[in-house]
């Protein structure tokens, strides 16, 4: 981090700010809320407090302006320079200016004003949480009438405020209906649909009927996807298809590769190299919250950081779940100290209870004292700075799987890795959100496709496919052909040749990873094939070429010939605590 020359800083902690004018891109309340959250980023880690005033001279005066706006430091129209701010002091010092020629959003695109519901016309808040899942678009989930709705706060589960999304979102394009709106429900192939669907198509395009019965009337159109409907190119209005191939590389998000103007584009088929179909990605704008948090850092005395991931890095990049970087914290605390926040939570004490007796077969846990002594590994006292201690005191991991040669243990938003090859052993806890942005804190299962190295994550009835940090999802597992009898996926076993077994309850499905559809003839009963392992296993995964089924503190290891050859303790054998 850097501070300004002379280490300019405020000489008082109770700072005031005043918003002089507002961008027309967002509601005043949304902007006020964004600024308040941006100041809270800094007040959370310092003794500073921020109070909004509505008249007179505040310490930090905030305004929107374009081109030359009175301070001799002109903006430059759309894009380029986004904002600037002055270091602490009197007069113009401390003030923050935002370029009014930018398209200000919350970083995810157009604002959607709701109708009816109970939010009095407030705008959708993207993303929002509904039934534990995160959504960045209007949805029909939870409704039987096909009406699109959204939450107007970050969590519908907590706040219950919502509204309906404008029906213009469902006006179709293409097809044979000249832009008529979708009709829900509609009948296709004898089944009733209350949302747009890709069923019946092999190109992944979402469509809907524009009458109540497609089977009878054959009238349809493609559903607009506000998130990814392209602009211009040669595919106006068509949705981006992710992933797509460009110059032999796979892309799961819009990219500026191949362009010199920095504009983001995507392919509208899965292979640009062969099909050459493309368009520009819709403008998601710039997050007023993120830019404001950065500028307020200047207002408080921080200069630009050279740490790419830091908030005070000069270039803009959107992040969905923002967290202040350690470099930013060190910088601001260097100037103002730490504040009266709570001390870090001391590490949990070591468990003192006796280990459970080792089970002798699936479902039973009886053993003799001699067997107990024979099977228990020596439990050496961990060193005071043993980084694997946290993983060693966890019970009942949400998911366990091998990724890039390392066993990953997931629990409540965190994960640990264990390598039996490196001396480093168990490492972590790491943040799931940092490594795979957009995933919920609790995942049920995961597996890595051996061929493409993509990682599939499952939570509830949703799944995500990650290439690095780029994700496609969430999508419903019904897209894979898994029926409603599966509440959640509890584990996965790679079987080679592009096939993966997905377990749920006492059944499993065989997934063709390439086409992302389960094979015919499934589900099948787990104990028809996998005899001797618990049918209520919490985790199922492949590791070192053997199948592992976990329940409580134990795992059952099975050979590819379906023979259980070991039952052991997860933490002593797999984590090597």
């Amino acid at each position, binding site marked *: 981090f850097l501070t300004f020359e002379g280490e300019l800083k405020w000489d008082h902690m109770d700072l005031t700010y005043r918003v002089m004018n507002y961008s027309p891109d967002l509601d005043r309340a949304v902007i006020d809320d964004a600024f308040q959250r941006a100041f809270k980023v800094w007040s959370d880690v310092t003794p500073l407090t921020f109070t909004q005033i509505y008249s007179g001279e505040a310490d930090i005066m905030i305004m929107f302006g374009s081109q030359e706006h009175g301070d*001799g430091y002109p903006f430059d129209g759309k894009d380029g320079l986004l904002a600037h701010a002055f270091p602490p002091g009197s007069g113009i010092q401390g003030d923050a200016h935002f370029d009014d020629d930018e398209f200000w959003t919350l970083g995810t695109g157009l604002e959607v004003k709701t109708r009816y519901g109970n939010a009095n016309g407030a705008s959708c808040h993207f993303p929002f949480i509904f039934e534990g899942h995160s959504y960045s678009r209007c949805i029909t989930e939870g409704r039987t009438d096909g009406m699109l709705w959204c939450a107007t706060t970050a969590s519908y589960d907590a706040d219950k405020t919502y509204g309906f999304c404008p029906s213009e979102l469902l006006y179709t394009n293409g097809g044979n209906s000249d832009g008529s709106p979708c009709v829900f429900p509609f009948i296709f192939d004898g089944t009733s649909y209350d949302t747009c669907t890709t069923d019946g198509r092999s190109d992944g395009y979402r469509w809907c009927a524009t009458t109540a019965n497609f089977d009878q009337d054959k009238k349809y159109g493609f559903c607009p996807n506000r998130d990814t409907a392209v602009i211009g190119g040669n595919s106006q209005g068509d949705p981006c298809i992710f992933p797509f191939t460009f110059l032999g590389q796979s892309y799961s998000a819009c990219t500026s590769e191949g362009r010199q103007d920095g504009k983001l584009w995507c392919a509208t088929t899965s292979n640009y190299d062969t099909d050459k179909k493309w368009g520009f990605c819709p403008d998601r704008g*710039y997050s007023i919250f993120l830019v404001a948090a950065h500028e307020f850092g200047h207002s408080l005395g921080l200069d630009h950081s050279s740490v790419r991931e830091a908030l005070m890095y*000069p270039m803009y990049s959107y992040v969905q779940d923002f967290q202040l970087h350690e470099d930013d914290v060190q910088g601001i605390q260097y100037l103002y100290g730490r504040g009266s926040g709570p001390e870090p939570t001391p590490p949990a004490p070591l468990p003192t209870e006796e280990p459970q007796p080792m089970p002798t077969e699936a479902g039973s846990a009886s053993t003799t004292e001699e067997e107990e002594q024979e099977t228990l590994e020596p439990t050496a006292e961990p060193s005071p700075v043993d980084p694997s201690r946290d993983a060693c005191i966890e019970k009942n991991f949400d998911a366990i799987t091998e990724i890039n040669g390392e066993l990953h243990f997931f629990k409540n938003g965190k994960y640990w890795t264990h390598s039996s090859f490196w001396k480093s052993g168990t490492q972590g806890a790491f943040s799931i959100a940092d490594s795979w942005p957009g995933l919920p804190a609790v995942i049920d299962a995961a597996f890595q496709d051996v061929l493409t190295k993509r990682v599939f994550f499952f939570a509830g009835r949703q799944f995500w496919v990650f290439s690095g940090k780029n994700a496609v999802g969430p999508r419903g597992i019904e897209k894979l052909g898994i029926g409603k009898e599966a509440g959640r996926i509890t584990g996965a076993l790679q079987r080679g040749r592009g096939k993966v077994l997905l377990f749920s309850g006492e059944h499993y499905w065989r997934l063709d990873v390439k086409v992302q559809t389960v094979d015919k003839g499934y589900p099948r009963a787990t104990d028809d094939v996998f005899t001797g392992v618990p049918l209520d296993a919490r985790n199922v995964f492949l590791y070192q070429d053997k199948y592992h089924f976990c329940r409580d503190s134990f795992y059952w290891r099975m050979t590819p010939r379906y023979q259980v050859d070991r039952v052991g303790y997860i933490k002593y054998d797999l984590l090597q605590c």
Partner: protein
Amino acid sequence: APLHSKPQAVITFPGELLSAPSDVELAESYLLRFGYIQEAEARRSSKHVSLAKALRKMQKQLGLEETGELDASTLEAMRAPRCGVPDVGG
């Protein structure tokens, strides 16, 4: 400091031909605007001013590979939307 006028010096990059004029103009403007080269420094120099040093400074500040050349990643960084506060100087 705000740019009152474009620098008069002709900028060259050691060891390679000039890129397309628009790239050079972009680099000139960027390096001056964000404090990697001072106007006085550009005026003091002869007509041909090496900016390798300024580019290296910028590349180091932004966490790029320090080539001293106007390569693709440097140009991409110069085109990226950003804060208007200079990286160097007051």
